[in-house]
């Protein structure tokens, strides 16, 4: 088997293991400790932040403006609207600034 296929298949196995593993471990406990639950409740915001913050520190002014406008838009609108506003600002400014 060539290296690419080997990496893809093992990558898939490990990824599925991660997706099913958290449940298999936690479902062994009848009651979830409140601190574990508090931690689990924080998971989405914590993880998703790590996908935004480093990108934001690398961003130029155009990207920063798009991000801030999108963030403000999210206070008022739903996900789709917020995303389209952010994308429009980003693409619009890049046509001008380059």
């Amino acid at each position, binding site marked *: 088997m060539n290296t690419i296929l080997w990496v*893809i298949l093992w990558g898939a196995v490990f990824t599925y293991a*991660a997706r099913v593993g958290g449940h298999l471990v936690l479902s062994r406990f009848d009651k979830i400790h409140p601190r574990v639950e508090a*931690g689990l*409740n924080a998971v989405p915001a914590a993880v998703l*932040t790590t996908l935004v913050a480093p990108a934001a520190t690398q*961003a130029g002014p155009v990207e920063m403006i798009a991000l801030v406008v999108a963030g403000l838009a999210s206070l008022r609108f739903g996900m789709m609207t917020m995303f389209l506003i952010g994308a429009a600002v980003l*693409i619009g400014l*890049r046509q001008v600034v380059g």
Partner: protein
Amino acid sequence: MSAGSISEGAPGSEVWRGVKAGLPVVVASAPFGLLFGALAVDNGFTPFEAFLMSASIYGGASQMVGLELFGAKIAPWLIVLSIFAVNFRHVLYSGAVGRRIRHWPPLQQAVGFFFLVDPQYAESEVKGARGEKISFAWYMSMALPIYVCWIAEAWIGGTFGNLIPDPHALGIDFLLPIYFLGLVMDFRDRPFWLPVVATSAIASVIAYKTVGSPWHVTIGAAAGILLAAAMPLDGKRDNPS
């Protein structure tokens, strides 16, 4: 609309709700699906291998990291390890969503966990936090359109990759952070949201600049989660969402 009609949920409306929840994801991920296919072929993949990677791993960020490392000629097992590191957050998703789908038969659970990508997790949490039941029909109706488009895009991007005239002008490199920011904001009603986000932001930036990618995801997330777990338990307990 009464609460009863929501939690009972006729199968048809559950399907429609699921499709609707997935639609923004289909649109937002399309550029990345295509871009992945194009980059994969750039890195020596065949269009079929690009398709296979999207179909079997099904995790955009980890696929991109995998490609990046292929280009860097790193030992194969290290690439697998990096893919796992990027997707390790799914352990946490699995634990959280697993609580909400205990009523599914085991086989449905086994299938469902395969599709547990970031937006699938986020939408399931949002729905669960509203007190609605996560049905298999809703979950798969959200997951399948995203999945089918994602793997089709890998193949299309791999086959017609060089047709994107100017990715920079189209903002493709920065659409993902905007999308993820939207998801972060979706969770702003959670207890300790601001301290968690601030901690994870600072920790991930420091890790990104010192340890490097992809570990900033694991390290940054761990910092925020530990902070939330260490916070005083009293006071906010009666508001579990």
